[in-house]
């Protein structure tokens, strides 16, 4: 079955695949996960806030993002971000945003909707009495969030946040539609140049599987160690 296949194409291109492609994928995943969690936490706080209108805004944002396919969102932002930037800073022309920054903004904003749902559950898992106790001690809203509620919510939700980050890692492969050289993009460029797509796509599948599988095993291990604080 593999007689016609030539796996040397992988040996010849592994540096490009990993140092260019995988480096892009991992950087994008890491930055978008951090950005997504920070923004997601803010959205979750808005969602649970008692200030009028804020919860509604947060809800509309989350539901809006969650009803769109990521592919469509990627196209939207690649074309729209420069105009939004122009509008925000009041520049006279659309600001220039490169492929990486544009993908980063897209994934941060998109994944924030998903992270916010996780953080909302995390904040809600902390007994209300703790917030009440914090304010009784004279802590402000931000102090009680920052030093009482959020640290525990993070700890409780860490496994779920990491699982979502694995999903994010897989989702970044969709920047393929913009011809950006992420890991899959690099693999497909080599595949198309050398006419070796069977070998390259199989290899890409094996690498993605290995990374995600090992990561999910580690998350499960962590899950057993991090007991939910109630």
């Amino acid at each position, binding site marked *: *079955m593999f007689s016609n296949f030539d796996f040397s194409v992988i040996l010849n291109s592994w540096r490009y695949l990993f140092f260019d492609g995988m480096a892009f994928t991992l950087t994008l995943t890491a930055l978008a996960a951090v950005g997504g969690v920070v923004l997601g936490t803010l959205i979750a706080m808005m969602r649970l806030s008692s200030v009028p209108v804020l919860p509604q805004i947060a809800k509309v944002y989350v*539901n*809006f993002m969650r*009803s*769109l*396919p*990521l*592919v*469509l969102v990627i*196209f*939207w932002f690649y*074309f*729209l971000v420069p*105009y939004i930037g*122009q*509008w925000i800073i009041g520049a006279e*022309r*659309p600001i220039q945003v490169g492929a990486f920054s544009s993908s980063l903004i897209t994934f941060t904003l998109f994944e924030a909707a998903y992270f916010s749902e996780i953080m909302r559950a995390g904040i809600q898992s902390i007994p209300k009495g703790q917030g009440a106790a914090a304010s009784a001690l004279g802590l402000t809203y931000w102090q009680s969030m920052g030093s009482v509620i959020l640290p525990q919510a993070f700890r409780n939700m860490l496994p779920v946040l990491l699982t979502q980050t694995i999903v994010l890692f*897989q*989702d970044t*492969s*969709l920047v*393929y*539609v913009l011809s950006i050289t992420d890991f*899959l993009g690099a693999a*497909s460029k080599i595949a198309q140049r050398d006419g070796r*797509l*069977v070998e390259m*796509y*199989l290899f*890409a*599948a094996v690498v*993605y*599987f290995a990374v*995600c*599988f090992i990561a*999910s095993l580690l998350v499960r291990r962590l899950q057993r160690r991090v007991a939910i604080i109630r």
Partner: protein
Amino acid sequence: MNYNWNWGIFFEQSPEGTGSYADMLLSGLVWTIVTALCAWVIAFAVGSVIGVLRTLPSRAAQAIGNAYVELFRNIPLLVQMFLWYFVLPEMLPESWGTWLKQLPNAPFYTAVVCLGFFTASRVAEQVRAGIQALPRGQRMAGTALGLTTAQTYRYVLLPNAYRIILPPLTSEFLNNLKNTSVALTIGLLELTARARAMQEFSFQVFEAFTAATIIYIVINLLVVAVAGLIERRVAVPGR
């Protein structure tokens, strides 16, 4: 903003000669819905079987179920799409491969199969969780009544489990619907692909994407509404 807005574009003829740009988007919507429904049939059937396997007493059955879920959850959907579309035909005997490649609407069948098996792994997770959430007494009651394992699942466990997992299944169905857009990479002319084609032919980027966005939101709201109706219909009275 240096952009020529033209909202009338939807009523102009598309170069495909089959109607206006609005018709083009609607034909994409039809493909999106048909693909999602067909894929869902596979996902629901395969996912239920795999989910059940994971709750059976047999170690071998559990291992098969777990292996399936790990395999399909840990490879990005786009890569799976390429494996089905580009790699599978080359792995088969040549005559089968050629037949497969020359099927009319090959992107559609590929997308249905790929999405079906992908979503099945997620449905399986929900089915397993649903069955495991039932009180253990239910299984025992089935056995005590003299039901076989198959009958216990058919008449006792699954009907209750599906009721519990209806909300997460709805969100899996919505994910499945959104994921049809990934099939644009193998040439499926679904809604996002049509919006992109409209942008390319007419250069009206933002009108095309705005229309697609609104359509997706409307389908989402409809699905959520329908799921709510079903939920009320099948609710066990008195619970």
